[in-house]
């Protein structure tokens, strides 16, 4: 959690003017579109080579022979792709102060080479911090879907955002 007395944090507030998304802009029950992302075989293999070098993430034939049924992205790669979609959709243009963690991630179905992912974030609840009223906590459920509309990934977490008043 950021310390509001900290000088660096005061600078951060100054940098936050002009951001489209502040705490007040998140509405309970509303959904935000995460755009779309095409998943290539090359990027699946690239990520897996560095972080998750299991055969089903590296090789088409091994993937087909596996329980996943094809060359499939590492679950950690799906997390990373989701993060990029979140950044591009609104996080970089928000007063985000990061997230302390993730309540859960479910890798519900394999993400295969050639899949086209779309996603949405639904605001579950929100509240202003009692000890730091300039900070709001937004609880969110995020989902990614493949081109058949199947939910392949679900994530719940709480994000911290400065209030518009704090950055004005």
């Amino acid at each position: 959690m950021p310390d509001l007395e900290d000088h660096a944090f005061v600078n951060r507030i100054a940098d936050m003017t002009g951001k489209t998304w502040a705490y007040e802009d998140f509405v309970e029950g509303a959904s935000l579109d995460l755009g779309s992302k095409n998943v290539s075989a090359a990027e699946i293999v690239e990520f897996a080579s560095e972080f998750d070098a299991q055969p089903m993430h590296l090789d088409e034939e091994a993937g087909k022979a596996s329980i996943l049924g094809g060359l499939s992205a590492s679950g950690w790669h799906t997390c990373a792709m989701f993060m990029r979609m979140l950044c591009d959709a609104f996080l970089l243009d928000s007063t985000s102060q990061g997230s302390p963690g993730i309540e859960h991630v479910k890798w519900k179905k394999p993400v295969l080479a050639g899949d086209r992912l779309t996603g949405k974030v639904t605001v579950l609840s929100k509240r202003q911090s009692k000890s730091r009223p300039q900070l709001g906590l937004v609880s969110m459920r995020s989902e990614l879907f493949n081109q058949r509309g199947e939910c392949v990934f679900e994530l719940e977490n709480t994000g911290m955002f400065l209030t518009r008043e704090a950055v004005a």
Partner: protein
Amino acid sequence: MTLDEYFLIGETVTLGSHKFEADEIKAFARKYDPQVFHVDEEAANKSVLGGLCASGWHTAATWMKYNLEKRMETEGVRWTGPGPQPEFGPSPGFRNLKWLKPVYAGETVTFTRTALAHRPLAGRPGWSLLTLRSEGFDSTGDKVIEFDSAVLVKVE
């Protein structure tokens, strides 16, 4: 040998240590998490985190890297139980992931894994679900990441 012995239930295994260099922090973040405190030293110094630090997803994925290296190193070598050697499959997900402290550029994180329990999966004959506690500690011994994960294992 029992599955409990093979999985080292209850034992904390040190997976390895990784130094997070500025260049790789930025390379990962440019692709997947381009928030200022992960891609730009100067902006990071002025940010809420006070310096360039790894994306939390970079830290988590690096746990997996070392988890896997340790698994492969031991796989095939030690299984002396009845039937085929247990085979690790996919994971259904994780819970309670906490990024407890920023991992700043130049910091070294030591990753660990503790196997907690395993149970047969009713819907998937021949497969068991192994639950794990995963953690990472920085050079001062402070915990920087923790999460509870699980992995399917083919045991028959």
